[in-house]
């Protein structure tokens, strides 16, 4: 554990490169990955690290994403650290084995560069891919900035490997917006990262031939339910542990992480909730509105799985009106995935404020400050005039 603040190195990198740096510093035993826009740069960059001998990692240049996750499962079960990175269709292609990874309680780390799902084909950002995996038993963190992509990449490993969690963990950065967007960030010294992540002690490694274990058994009606209940319990425990790890990370980086971040939220009357890079745009708008005397605030959710319902309800309980911004659709549902979680959290905590749901940014459609201004305008309006219709609003749609 590093307890003293270390000096970071300021650099300008895009999100993909920052993540590649984080993987290099974590120096996993095995990486198995496959290229897909807008994640490709991570694989390319990491291949260079391997070629230049800058990592000890054995890299498996698999023939598909399904194989990437399958190989990570084998590698992790074998008894070492395994990581991968993907996006969009690649994540969808892994879907079956995402469940195998979590059901087998393997602390695999995955870096997801968000991309929409076909059809029609589109390489740009939305959250359909990671939201499609939201029930697969993976812990999910979302990054607002390139700095956060780097920081979450590193913390993901500690979260996954925590003995009270032992669940695969992914963090998601918005494709192109963060993946290819160059920002200033601070890289930690390699040894600070290494001492933060520590040495991995596998619990029942497959490679321990003196103590043979059976991985991936068939479990039928007699035990399956209990198996799954334990998985759910691990997710619940993660709610406590993730902020502890974020706190520890803060002690030596100065950057503290919780489950969510409130931005001018405490005394706000009108709040938005968002994931990922859009939170940055919203912060700008919040500042502008505050200058105009509007009590605007933002709840940026860092951790979507497990969903921090209680702290979210506590933070939103006194708001006059709330807008939930979803960067994906759940076709036929009564709102986007984030909206449904928020509504449930409010309801189960006995709260019923006025809440609007916006779908936005699908297929990379730009989310500009003017659109966010529109959202707050709507909130002020429904506060004054009441909420008449509750259907999803499509922000930035050409109609």
């Amino acid at each position, binding site marked *: 554990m590093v307890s003293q603040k270390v000096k970071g190195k300021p650099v300008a990198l895009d999100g993909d490169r920052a993540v590649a740096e984080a993987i290099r510093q974590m120096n996993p035993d*095995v990486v198995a990955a496959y290229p897909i826009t807008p994640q490709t740069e991570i694989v390319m960059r990491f291949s260079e690290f391997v070629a230049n001998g800058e990592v000890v990692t054995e890299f498996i240049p698999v023939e598909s994403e*399904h194989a990437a996750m*399958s190989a990570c499962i084998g590698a992790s079960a074998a008894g070492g650290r395994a990581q991968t990175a993907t996006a969009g269709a690649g994540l969808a292609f892994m879907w079956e*084995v995402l469940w195998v990874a979590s059901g087998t309680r393997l602390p695999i780390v995955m870096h997801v560069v968000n991309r929409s799902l076909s059809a029609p084909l589109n390489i740009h950002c939305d959250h359909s891919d990671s939201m499609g995996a939201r029930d697969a038993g993976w812990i999910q963190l979302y990054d607002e900035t390139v700095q956060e992509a780097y920081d979450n990449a590193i913390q993901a490993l500690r979260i996954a490997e925590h003995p009270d969690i032992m669940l695969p963990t992914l963090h998601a950065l918005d494709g192109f917006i963060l993946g290819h967007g160059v920002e200033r960030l601070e890289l930690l010294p390699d040894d600070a990262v290494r001492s933060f992540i520590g040495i991995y002690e596998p619990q029942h490694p497959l490679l321990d031939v003196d103590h043979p274990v059976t991985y991936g058994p*068939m479990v039928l009606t007699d035990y399956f339910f209990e198996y799954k209940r334990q998985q759910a319990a691990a997710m619940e425990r993660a709610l406590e542990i993730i902020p502890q790890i974020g706190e520890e990370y803060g002690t030596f980086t100065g950057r503290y992480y919780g489950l969510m971040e409130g931005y001018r939220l405490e005394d706000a009357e009108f709040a938005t909730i968002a994931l990922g890079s859009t939170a940055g745009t919203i912060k700008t708008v919040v500042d502008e509105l505050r200058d105009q005397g509007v009590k605007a605030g933002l709840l940026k959710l860092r951790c979507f799985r497990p969903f921090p319902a209680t702290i979210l309800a506590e933070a939103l309980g006194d708001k006059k009106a709330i807008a939930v911004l979803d960067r994906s659709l759940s076709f036929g549902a009564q709102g986007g995935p984030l909206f449904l979680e928020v509504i449930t959290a409010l309801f189960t905590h006995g709260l019923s404020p006025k809440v609007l749901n916006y779908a936005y940014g699908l297929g990379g459609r730009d989310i500009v400050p003017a659109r966010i201004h529109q959202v707050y305008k709507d909130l002020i309006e429904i506060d004054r005039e009441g909420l008449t219709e509750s259907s999803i609003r499509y922000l930035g749609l050409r109609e």
Partner: protein
Amino acid sequence: MAINLKEMSAAQDLLAPGHRLCAGCAESIVVRQVLHAVGQPVVVASPTGCLEVSTSPYPYTSWRVPWIHNAFENVASTISGVETMYRSLVKQGKLEDKGIKFVVFAGDGATYDIGLQFLSGALERGHKFLYVCLNNEAYMNTGIQRSSATPLGAWTTTSPVGDAVPGKRENRKDITAIVAAHDIPYVAQAAPHAWRDLMTKAQKAISADGPSFINVLVPCQRGWRHPAEETIAITKLAVETCVWPLYEVVDGEWKLNYRPSPKKPITDWLQSQGRFRHLLTPENTHIVDSLQEIVDRQWDKLLERCKA
């Protein structure tokens, strides 16, 4: 490294008795033969299929060696990950190099069909492991459905025999040759009645410097419709009729391991199993003729390749 029956009979089986495979199932026979030949330390992987469900019903396991099941299609990627992790940890000095061997036992469905891409990828990348295909020529675990290993004319539950269609319309594909085309160090076909041949092949395969593959014919009495006690006699018949030639491809060199004399007619093979019963009627003689023609053509091609 010679195969010694006396030593073998004294050695402990690495697959414990008490598993739930059917009586007369050739899968466990082959697993035990191969593991005897390969020896410890060994790590085994299996995809979903009869062997997997029959040997791992939680909280029991039949595996006395480390064993992993991931899913139906991806056993080759799974073992790639395990083998790579081993190399990585040994390289870093995190694990002692005990010379662990890696073996896959996979059904024909998992190999010929849904897992072909994964297998091809693992072979191309050159991971050091032995892949044994337990080929019973259909998806047995799900109730005898056709695979691309199922021969022309065979009855399965997805190639049923009806008034319009007399069993499977297509012939099986030659996966052994497809694997050999990857130019890996060792590829072979084997059958459990020729146990010394099979076990010698397993030893050669596991000592190859790179991936190796053995396609083993494993009768399934449920799917093939034969008495349970005839399993071994039936694999012998497959070889005597040239339906299942025994050969190996060592560093690209094709070598025939057994030449039946005389070569028995395909009808002997067809008569031995209920899955072919409908073919032995007058209206289906053309299918029997086609099958004989295919066997002859493929046998001649094999002889040519083996310069035998």
